[in-house]
């Protein structure tokens, strides 16, 4: 159970390891709070969907399982969408279409089909929370880097001084790819042993 939880946080981290569901990760990560909000929204949808899928796994006929999963996921996504619109309008304006897009986020369907539909309820919850929070910390890290360099702020607070030159590229799509690529590289450097002298002729 603990292993299932940690797996999503690090070992099979959806962003840095599986490189899955990166559409939203690249699009909304221009400011730290966007990363946190998107991460929590996805964690909520993922956990609720995994619970239901795991409970219903023996009732749902295998031939219609994908439509069933999609209905479940879509329902929870719409709930998040409505509540965000009602209670966090400022955040909703920034995140806009990316909240409804959680429906087609491959992480959710990946865990529903690949894990929750085969495992016990407890393990499914642990896995969903691990994956969701793994996604959340990964995109929050990307957001923080992009926010500091792109806007000179951290969670909206100016930290780089008044004369700081904004790195415009960090707020644009290429910046998202660059930051993510560099972070994946750093993660690999930490976890992998360096390969020595493998030049080929």
């Amino acid at each position, binding site marked *: 159970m603990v292993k299932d939880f940690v797996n999503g946080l690090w070992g099979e981290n959806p962003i840095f390891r599986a490189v899955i569901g990166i559409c939203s990760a690249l699009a909304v990560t*221009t400011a730290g709070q966007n990363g946190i909000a998107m991460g929590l929204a996805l964690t909520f949808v993922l956990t609720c969907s995994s619970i239901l899928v795991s409970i*219903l796994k023996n*009732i*749902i*006929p295998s*031939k*219609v399982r994908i*439509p*069933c999963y999609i*209905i*479940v996921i*879509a*329902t929870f996504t*719409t*709930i998040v969408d*409505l*509540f965000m*619109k*009602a*209670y966090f*309008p400022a955040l909703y*304006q920034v995140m806009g279409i990316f909240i409804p897009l959680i429906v087609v986020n491959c992480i959710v369907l990946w865990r529903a089909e690949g894990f929750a539909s085969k495992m016990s309820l407890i393990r499914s919850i642990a896995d969903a929370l691990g994956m969701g929070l793994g996604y959340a910390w990964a995109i929050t890290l990307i957001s923080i880097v992009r926010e500091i360099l*792109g806007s000179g702020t951290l969670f909206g607070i100016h930290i780089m001084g008044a004369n700081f030159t*904004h790195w*415009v590229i960090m*707020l*644009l799509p290429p910046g998202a790819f660059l930051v993510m690529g560099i972070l994946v590289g750093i993660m690999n450097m930490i976890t992998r042993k360096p390969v020595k002298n493998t030049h080929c002729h």
Partner: protein
Amino acid sequence: MNQYTRMIVVLVAISLAAGALLAFSYEVTNPKIQEQAQQALEQAVMKVIPGAEKMTTVEKEGMTLYIGTDNQGNKKGIAFKTTGSGFSGPIEIMVGYNPKEGKLTGIEILSMSETPGLGARIKEPAFTDQFKGKSVKDDFIPKKDVKVITGATISPAAVSKAIKSSLATVTKIYPVGGDF
């Protein structure tokens, strides 16, 4: 139960449950969402009409106009929405206008998707404040009577053009110097 019936039953049951859950959340959140939208609109109107505390909505010649009044009921100005086509999508602008003086009272960028650091700077007061007190009879041509932003030419031009073209309609409804 035969397998096809079972499929249908399960799908229908899940859809019904999902529908019910959604209907419930919609009922809970909808009044709040409406309220938020109204509040955002009012805030924008108050911002572009200094001194306004209340607003009334009027529909004239296909335009929705918001008339701002202060606490004593004195009319302070008219606000309206207009849309310009920017560098990467529409720019929604709220414009405040005072017919009596024939001047703009302020503008506010409601939504836009311009390039951060360049076109997006039309949102900054440095750019929007120059429209405060600007005569509606001005040309609204960038670099001539509208200050532009270094590195961005299209976004300020789009804002200026949108304001100028919508003013043509609004000044017909509420001519300069007239009452409102």
